[in-house]
């Protein structure tokens, strides 16, 4: 079976002054479908560059990246956009919700670019919001929602096109620890449902929920470790009890 993500010598270099900055250099790895991976490292380690490349927002300077066997580096811009629309879902640290649109419209937005009709969009967006536990807040605007709820809306938006891979860039960075735990529990639940998840973080406390940790430093993948993940839901239950 083809791996979900397959990179070989994946590199991203930026010209800077006289030399080049090797933001990412020579990363080769393989991730199967349905995995829960954390990309870790301090700032400037190359983890975000890695995420941008995996998310088809950027092109590698060198090397190949195959998403389910398809060589992403070769695709023209419109095909990359299609890839983002069909196969990938993004979750950002700062949520990136449209402030004037309600939760339903925010979640429905990606389906606009897939050409889905208005009613179909709204129905499906409502289902996605229900899936993340916001079934009762369809018509709240972002300003009327808490940070955790906003991130749930963003996750529903990432899910709504039924992607193969959910990419999250510091998803708990703007949230308090308890809400962060809830979000990680949601990711774990989605993973339990079969969704592949890749979380980028600098925080060991977030990475422990993944079953595989990729450690980056100075643009290199320095460690690739498999581990038994901590269950966020169990931690939450402990907190409740205490």
């Amino acid at each position: 079976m083809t791996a979900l993500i397959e990179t070989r010598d994946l590199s991203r270099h930026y010209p800077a002054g006289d030399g080049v900055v090797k933001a990412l250099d020579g990363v080769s790895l393989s991730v199967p479908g349905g995995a829960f991976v954390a990309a870790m490292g301090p700032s400037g380690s190359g983890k975000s560059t890695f995420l941008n490349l995996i998310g088809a927002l950027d092109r590698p300077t060198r090397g190949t990246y195959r998403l389910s066997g398809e060589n992403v580096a070769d695709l023209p811009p419109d095909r990359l956009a299609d890839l983002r629309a069909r196969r990938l879902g993004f979750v950002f640290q700062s949520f990136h919700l449209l402030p004037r649109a309600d939760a339903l419209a925010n979640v429905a937005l990606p389906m606009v670019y897939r050409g889905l009709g208005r009613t179909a969009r709204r129905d499906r967006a409502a289902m996605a919001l229900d899936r993340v536990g916001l079934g009762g807040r369809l018509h709240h605007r972002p300003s009327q929602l808490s940070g955790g709820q906003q991130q749930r809306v963003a996750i529903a938006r990432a899910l709504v096109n039924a992607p193969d891979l959910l990419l999250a860039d510091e998803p708990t960075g703007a949230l308090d620890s308890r809400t962060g735990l809830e979000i990680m529990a949601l990711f774990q639940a989605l993973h339990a449902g079969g969704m592949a998840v890749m979380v980028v973080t600098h925080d060991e406390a977030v990475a422990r929920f993944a079953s595989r940790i990729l450690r980056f430093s100075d643009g290199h993948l320095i460690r690739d470790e498999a581990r038994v993940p901590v269950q966020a839901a169990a931690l939450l239950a402990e907190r409740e009890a205490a």
Partner: protein
Amino acid sequence: MNAPVRDVAPVAAPVSAAGTAAPAGLPPMPPSSGRMHPFEALGSAFAALTANALRSMLTALGIFIGVAAVIATVAVGAGARQQVMQQIQSLGANLLMVWSGSVTQGGVRLGAGQRQNLSWDDAEAIMRDLPAVEVAAGSIRQSFQVVAGNQNWSTSILATAIDYFVAHDWNVAEGRLFSPEEANSGRKLALIGATVAENLFGDEDPLGREIRIRATPFEVIGVLARKGQNTAGQDQDDIIIIPYWTARRSVMGASRANARAVNVVSVKVHEGEDMAAAEAALRALFRQRHRVAANEPDSVQIRNLSEVAATRDASSRTLSVLLASVAAVSLLVGGIGVMNIMLVSVTERTREIGLRLAIGARRGDILAQFLAEAVLLALLGGAAGVGAGIAISHVMAEAGGWPVLVEWDAILLAVGVSGLTGLFFGYWPARQAARLDPITALRHD
């Protein structure tokens, strides 16, 4: 470095062997075109414009003023042109007017018509000798006090032949014209203009009634069709027309030295004939008939009245071109305003653009969204401008008494031009938006 492919499966995670079995917990995606529907761009453009309603209105104001100015000036121009056309028609088409020439006595040159060297026979000679001429009618005009019952009115009496009505495309509104036989036999019949009818008879029917010109009784047999003002602003309906020979015998004849004299000969040239050639032939004919030596000026003056009106038309055209270019400048300024606000809008919404790109928008989709916004903004301004322009022209028509004519093609043109203005000035900002790099756009503050 090869990654260890592992599958710890700590939770009861169903390993997604099927892959497509909706891992998001949602039903499979329904079939769709895979491309954004064009109307979606309009929808999001409308939402963006209403979100900043005041700013949108102020931006559209430039286009609004430009279009309103275009509509109003074009309406005034078209109205003026229509009026001139009506005047040309009231003068009679293909009409040449021959006046007797000026006279010089002891170095003093008197004006046209002072010489009294045109006669009834000249008109007949023109008809006989110039094949290009359809009709030629001599006429003589003089002012008299006219009495009907206990009313009296000072007006112009025009004595002429029946051909005068052909030459000037004129006819009666009520009653009938006199016949050639009646004209030649000296019957005392009168055709009165609408103004005369109002002043002498008021609401009563003038047909069959008697009027007295210089104590001579005439029977009113017709009321002339209304002509309105001529290009000089004179009321062409303040007139009484009587047969030439009747006038000669009973009203204005006796004292004149030349009993066959006329002031003017109206010459109608056949449709399709060259007016300039006809005018030259006419000139040559008069030089020969009046025995004018080669080194002397013409004995008569010939004028093409529709040319005079056409000159006025041209000057009103120049004026409307001038006004329209001012309006065009206003549209240009409005367009720059649209461009400015669109650039602001793109900068403000950089993060939104980044997000849209990240969730699958193509560059073309972003371009369409911002272009739609600019075009919609300009079109709304343009449409409101059309409404205001029509209102302004009505106010001008009411208050200023100007003839205005709002034409459909002017409206379509104005709306089309404002749409194009939006397209032209919106393209650059929209392209800026579409060219943003998603990563930098997402990180934009």
